[in-house]
């Protein structure tokens, strides 16, 4: 028998357990094993003193479901726990999470450095809408790490990017970009929708705020819109004078300084107290509950998404109708090694590929697949396809499309968890149809 002393180790719950349990205690909810849906707008105060204390952030609790709701709160804690974050704030969509993050961080006259390869809606927010609020942006290609550094100005308040860009699958070197941000005394904000915390925990690689469209893989079922911002708790808002609304007395709460009072949760507290109060993009409790059902099976689904994606990559690489395939699992993908480091549990289920025959072939392919759904979403359990240049990114002009790395032959594929043979068979139908116009034009 060995006399080696057993090393002590923490017994805190791990990822799969947190996916099912974090944020909820049945004994505080009438013993209900399932998270209850608190379908209410407002909450009784014990007395006037209790009401005043809640409004004044003296005590925790709920006032009005635009600000917080118990069902939504379970979702917020669950995602914070899975990400390794200190706090989270759920919103009505991923876009509202981005907007709320920017409005919590920036004032009119501020500037952001932004990766150029983003979801089209996000590009429009940064390029067209935020300037209306006096917030300007400089776009930098995701692989141009030095470009992020060069684009930082005196009034820059943060760097924003998607870890794996939509739709071209270019990776931003998160650890290096985080260092650039931190050297400049500003936070790195990462939209990690494509990864979910199962594939990557951005806080471990230097991110300070993580954003998800929960509508996608986190929920998985494609039934409910939801977004969330998560705070890492490591960013020191008081290190410089760039963030006065975080560090100086705030008139809206009797001179409260969020950074001094709430430290590692200051950003979320401000986003809720100010952002939800004044902008109000709250998540409905029903949708929060729907998303929670998806998160319960997150790791199981993500494994299947990733294994199916890798099968589809092999299939597409070998296919005569395919001009090129972009996925971080492909050995000659420029970010293959970086992806191995940042995405150890799988490279994700988004594939971009070029179809031979260009735009016409792409349209024919999309119009003829039957199992794969043609729609403007990703991360559903079902396989989804879209032609970005005529769909998600159609509001971009030619120059912007090119800068964002989009070509007219590109098909964006979100691989579902159906039987892999059925997905391939469906694609064969699409490819056959795509070849027909070219055969006609060649005659």
């Amino acid at each position: 028998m060995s006399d080696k002393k057993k090393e002590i180790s923490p017994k805190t719950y791990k990822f799969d357990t947190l996916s099912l349990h974090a944020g909820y205690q049945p004994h505080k909810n009438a013993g209900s094993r399932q998270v209850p849906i608190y379908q209410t707008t407002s909450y009784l105060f014990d007395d006037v003193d209790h009401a005043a204390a809640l409004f004044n952030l003296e005590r925790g609790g709920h006032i009005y479901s635009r600000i917080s709701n118990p069902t939504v709160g379970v979702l917020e804690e669950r995602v914070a726990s899975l990400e390794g974050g200190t706090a989270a704030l759920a919103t009505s969509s991923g876009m509202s999470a981005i907007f709320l993050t920017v409005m919590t961080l920036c004032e009119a006259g501020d500037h952001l450095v932004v990766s150029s390869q983003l979801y089209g809606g996000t590009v429009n927010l940064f390029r067209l809408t935020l300037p209306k609020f006096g917030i300007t942006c400089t776009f930098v290609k995701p692989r141009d790490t030095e470009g992020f550094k060069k684009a930082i100005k005196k009034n820059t308040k943060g760097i924003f990017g998607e870890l794996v860009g939509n739709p071209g699958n270019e990776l931003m070197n998160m650890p290096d970009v985080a260092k650039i941000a931190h050297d400049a005394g500003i936070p790195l904000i990462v939209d990690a929708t494509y990864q979910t915390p199962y594939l990557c925990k951005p806080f471990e690689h230097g991110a300070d705020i993580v954003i998800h469209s929960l509508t996608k893989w986190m929920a998985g079922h494609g039934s409910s819109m939801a977004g969330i911002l998560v705070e890492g708790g490591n960013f020191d808002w008081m290190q410089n004078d760039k963030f006065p609304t975080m560090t100086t007395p705030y008139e809206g709460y009797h001179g409260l300084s969020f950074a001094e009072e709430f430290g590692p949760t200051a950003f979320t507290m401000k986003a809720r107290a100010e952002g939800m109060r004044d902008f109000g993009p709250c998540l409905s409790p029903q949708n929060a509950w729907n998303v929670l059902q998806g998160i319960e099976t997150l790791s199981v689904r993500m494994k299947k998404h990733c294994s199916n994606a890798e099968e589809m990559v092999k299939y597409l690489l070998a296919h005569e109708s395919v001009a090129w395939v972009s996925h971080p699992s492909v050995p000659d993908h420029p970010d293959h090694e970086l992806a191995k480091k940042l995405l150890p549990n799988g490279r994700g289920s988004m594939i971009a590929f070029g179809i031979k025959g260009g735009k016409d072939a792409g349209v024919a392919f999309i119009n003829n697949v039957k199992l794969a759904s043609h729609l403007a979403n990703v991360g559903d359990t079902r396989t989804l396809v879209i032609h970005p240049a005529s769909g998600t990114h159609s509001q971009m002009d030619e120059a912007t499309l090119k800068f964002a790395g989009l070509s007219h032959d590109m098909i964006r594929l979100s691989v579902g968890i159906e039987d892999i043979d059925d997905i391939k068979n469906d694609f064969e139908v699409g490819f056959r149809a795509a070849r027909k116009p070219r055969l006609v034009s060649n005659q």
Partner: protein
Amino acid sequence: MKFKVNGEDVYASTGGRPFDKNKPLIIFVHGSGLTHMTWVLQTRYFAFHGYSVLALDMPGHGLSGGKSLKSIEDMAEWIGKVIDSVGYKEASLVGHSQGCLVTIECTSRYPDKIKTLSLMGGAGAIPMNPELLSLAENNDPKAVDLMMDWAHGPAGHFGGHPVPGLYHINTGTMLAKSRTIQNTLGVDFRACDNYKNGFEAAKKIKCPTLSILATDDKMCPVKEGKKLAALIDGSQVDIIDNCGHMMLLEEADRVLKVLKKFITSNYPPKI
């Protein structure tokens, strides 16, 4: 606010209200390796209800300057100087964990200065697990992970933070890692382990005293808290079910309710 003690900057949260020397003073003393932020769900209430509040960052912790003090006795002396430095002759003390050792020692040394004593997760002695102590002194982040595991009860491990959206364990982890672990947690754990005077100090305490204990507290178990309370004349004890060592956050409302009743009845506010 910031002020000086022994020539070093001291940071203390005033609970979101300007510090007002005309109001009775409550001083909150945090536990090992932590900061003033652990008290946010108690301090703001008292600050808005007739008290002046100082939730301290101990030297070398949080936003305070200087180096961490190496003994509980030094920390107790330092609290006495804090009261002098802000121009008060008396104060009410509230301590958590290591903060209980500090406030017990301080109250025994300055019986005329301390008007009430509230102890949360307190004991007469806090001997440290040798491996945990070694990890902290060697700057190993595992020390924080272990402390967060042992310090939290069901609410901490599953969640259910009283402030919507906050997650207990990760927030505590970030607080404990906000300064170099060996310089805060390592020094604090050693000070706790070395301190042997808790039970003797408790016997000297004559002011109204409250002990809030929690059934799932692995750091300072209920039986240890009761043993301490039994040595203090007229000490009140409140035990919270299904809660861990971080009761001031895990069951913040319950703690505030008990604390409010105890302090306002023994050391009235000035409204």
